[in-house]
C-alpha cells in the first residue's frame, strides 16, 4: 500500500454502497477522492471545480446522460483519464464504451488490486 502519490480521483457512481466501498478502497490505496457525482451533470461540474487527475465512471448512472455519454463530454473538454466501472459485459454497451476511448475498464465486483492496476495503467498513458 501507499504505492501512489495521492492523485485526485473523481468518483461518478449513483449507488451509495458502491460509492462508499470505492471510496474506502481508494483511500486504502493512497489515492485522494476529490469528489463523488451521482449523475453526468454533477460530474461535469466537479470536473471543473475539483480538477481530478482521473475519473472512475459507472456506465449505468441515472440522469439524462449515462456514464458513456458523460465520458464523451469529459474527453472533449478535459485531458483526464477515465476508467469505466461496470457490471455490463454485453457487446453493445462495450462497443459504445470503446468508442469513447476510455483508459480502462473495471468489472464489478472488484477488489483493491483491480482498482490499483487499472488506475496505474491509466495514469501512465
Amino acid at each position, binding site marked *: 500500500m501507499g504505492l501512489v502519490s495521492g492523485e485526485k480521483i473523481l468518483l461518478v457512481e449513483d449507488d451509495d*454502497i*458502491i460509492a*462508499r466501498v470505492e471510496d*474506502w*478502497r481508494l483511500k*486504502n490505496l493512497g489515492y485522494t477522492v476529490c469528489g463523488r457525482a451521482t449523475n453526468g451533470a454533477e460530474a461535469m461540474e466537479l470536473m471543473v471545480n475539483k480538477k481530478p487527475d482521473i475519473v472512475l465512471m459507472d456506465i449505468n448512472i441515472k440522469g439524462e446522460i449515462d456514464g458513456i455519454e458523460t465520458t464523451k463530454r469529459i474527453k472533449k473538454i478535459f485531458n483526464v483519464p477515465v476508467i469505466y466501472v*461496470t*457490471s*455490463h459485459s454485453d457487446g453493445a454497451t462495450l462497443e459504445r464504451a470503446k468508442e469513447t476511448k476510455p483508459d480502462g475498464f473495471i468489472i464489478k*465486483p472488484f477488489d483493491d488490486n483491480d482498482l490499483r492496476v487499472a488506475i496505474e495503467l491509466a495514469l501512465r498513458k
Partner: protein
Amino acid sequence: MKLQKKSLLVFVVLLIAVLIVISVFFSTILLASYSALEEQYVAKDLNQAVNKLNDELFTMSSIASDWGPWDDTVDFVNGNDPNYLNSNLKPYGFDNLNLNLIVLTNTKGEVLFSGAYDLKNKVMVPVPAFFSGQLDPKNPLMNMSDPHQITTGIVMLPDDPMLVVSQPIVHSDFSGPSQGVVIMGRYLNKEEIARLAELTRPNLTFTRIDDPALSPNLVLRIRDNSGSAPGIIQQLNMDQVAGYALIRDIYGNDALVLQITETRDIYHQGINTTVQVILIILAGGLFLGLLVIFLLDRVVLKRMASLALQVNTIGKSGSTRDHVVIEGDDELSGLATEINRMLETIEQTQQKVLVSEARFRELAEQLPLIIFEMDTNGNLTYVNKAGVELFGVTEQKILEGINIRHYLYEDNIEQMQRGLSAVMSGAKSPGEIYSLKQLDGNLMRAIVSTSLVHREGRATGFRGIVLDISERIRLEEALTESEEKYRAITENTPDILFSTDMAGIITYASPQVNKYGFLVEEVIGKSLRIFIHPADIDQVENNLSRELEKGAQFISQFRILDKWGTTFWFEEKSSLRLDISGKPVGIYGILRDVTERKRVEDAIDIANKKLNLMNQITRHDILNTITGLLGCVDMAKATNSPEEQEQLFNDIRDLTRVIQRHITFTKEYQEVGVHLPQWQNVNNLLNKVFQNFEKSGIKFSSEFETLEIYADPLLEKVFYNLIENAIRYGETITTISIYSGISDKGLSLVFEDDGVGIEAGQKQEIFKRGVGKNTGMGLFLTAEILAITGITIEEDGIFKKGARFEIRIPNGTWRLPRD
C-alpha cells in the same frame, strides 16, 4: 352554233321583228289616222249633202214664204180673187220656181188649187193623189199654228219622194188667222238628185228605206246612228267609201237613205305614206343593224370567239400554265385577266392537289393499316402496300378481278353483307371484328371499318381500313388467362390482396376479408384508414408518406380491428402503381395476418426484454450489490471497531436481502407475457384484489359498468400493485376510488386515493425500475404488464392531496360485455 352566227341571227330576227312591229305600229297608227281623216271628210261631205237637201227645202221654203203670207193668196183662198190662178199659177211659173207641185188649201184642208209640173218635159201633169181632194188636218203640211213657221220635209209618193214645204196662208203682214196653207213640192227624182249631186258630190243617191237593195245591217246601223252626227261612214272596198244618212219624211218616219260614195284618196295616200315610212325605217334599220353587227363583231364577237378559242385550246391541252391574250381595256380584256388569274389559281391548286395526293398516297403506303377500296359488288379496286404484303392483292389480281369474299371466312360473309348494307343506307360503320385469311395461310383477326365512296353524286363502292388486332386478341386472351390464374392464386392465398387509389380508397380487396367479418363490397370504396387501429394510423401514414417519396416498396405493420372488435396484426407490403407516364395512380398491396407471428415476436421481444432486464438485474444490480457486499466484508475485516463491524454486518445482511428481492422479481417478471392476453372482467378482478386488503382499513369505491379489458393474465397483479403502492406510500390514505371514463381514444380506468400523493419530479420516475422503497419493481412491472396489450399508465394526481393513476385502455382492448 357559233356566237357570231347566233348573234347575227338573233340580231336579224330582232331587226325583222322590230321592223315588223314598227311597220305594224306605224301602219296601224297612220292608216288609222288616215281612215279617221277619210271618215271626217266623208262625214263632212255627207253633212254637206244633207245640208244641201235642207238648203233645197229652205229655198223652197223661201218661195213658199212669198206665196203664203200674201194678201192675194188670202183673197184667193177666201174666194175673193178668181184671177189669182191665171195671174200666178201658170206652167212657166212652175218652171221658173223649179217646182213640181203647188197646192193651195183652206183651213179644212180642202184643196183649192193643185198643180203638178214635169220639169223635164215641161208640161203639166196630174197631181199626185196624195195632194188630191182634202188633206187631213192632222197632216203636218196642214200645220197652221204659227204663220211664220214653214213645214218642210219629204213626202214619200209612189213614184218618187217629193221635197215639200208648207206655208200657212196669212195676210202679207202676218195678221189675222191662217186661211189655209200653200204647199210646194219638188220631186226628188233622178234629175233632181243629179242636180243635187252636181252641187255636192258626184255620187249621191237616195234609196227608199225599205228598198231590199239596202243591207239590213246597214239600215240597222243607220237607224241606230240616226240620233247623232249625220249618218255613218262605211268603207265599201279599198277604193271607195260611202256615207249614209237617214232622211225622214214629214211624219218623222224613216223614209230615205242618202248615200254619197267617194274614192278613198286619203286612205290611199295614207297607205303610200305608211309604205314610205316603213321603207325608210327598214332601210335605216337595216343599215344600222349591219353597222351594229359589224361593230359588234369587230369589237366583241371576234374577240370573244378568240377568247373562247384560247380557253378551249387550254381546256383541251389541260395546260393551266398557258394564258389567254385579249387586247384592249374593257370587260373582255378584264375577263381575260380574270381567266388568267383563275388559271393560275387552278395551277396552284393542282400543284397542291398533286402534292397532297402524293403525300396521302405515300402515307397510305407507309401505314401499317391496310387500306382498300372495292366496288359495290365487293370486287377490290385498290389495296395499299400493307394489304399487298399481307394478303397478296397485287395489281394484277385486281385487274383480273378479285372479290373481298376470297379473304373472309364463311361465317363472316353474312356479317360483311349486313355491315355494307347498313353503310349503304347511311349508317356509320361500327368497325366489326372479322377473321381474314392471310397470304401465308394464317388467320388475322381484324377490325374492319368501311365508308361509302361517292363519285358524281352516286355510290360507286366502299373504302375501308383493316386494323390487325390479332396480337391484341392474343394479349387479351393471355391477359384473361393470367387474370384467371392470378384470381385463383389471390382467392386461395391466405393473405389479403388489395389495391387503393392515391387517396387511400380501396379499389380491390380479395375475398380473404371475409375471414375478418367483412364482405368485399363493404370494404371497396372505403378508406383503408378506417380499418387500421386508431393508435397505428399516424405511424402507418407517416411511414407511407416517407416511403412514397422514395418511390420504393414500403412495408408497414399495424393493427386492424375485425368486425367484432378483435385486434389483428397485419404486415402490409405495398408498392406504387404507376400509369403509362409513370405517374402514381394507386397502390397494390398484400396484407398478411401476422398476429400469431407478432404474438410470437412480442413474446420473443418480451423474452428478450426480460432477458436484458434480467441481465441487467443479474449483472448490474446483483453484481453491484455483491460489489457492495464484498466491500462491506473487506471493510468489516479491516476495521477493529466492533460498532463499525456491527454496522457493516447489518449492511451485509441488507445487501443480501436486496439480492434476494432481485431474484424474486426475476421470477415474477418471468411470468409477464408468457401467456396470451385475454379478455378479463375488471369488476371481478377488483373484487378479488379487494379481498386481500379487507383488514387494511381502507375504504374502496368502484363505480362503473361491468367492463372487460384485453390484457396479460397478470392484470390482477397490476390492480394489486396499485392498491398496495397506495397503501404503502399513501401515508394518510383512507379511501381508494376506482372509476372509468370514455373518450374518443379509449377507456380510462382511474385509481385515485386521498393519500399524500407523488411529487411532480417523481411522476415519471416511479415507473422506472429500481425506484421506490421496496424492490422498486412494482410500478415498473405494472407498466410492463399493461404494455403487453398497448395499455398505458401514468400518475397525474396532486401532491399532498392524493395519487391518481390513470390506466388508458385504447379502443379495441376494452368492451362492455353483453349479458
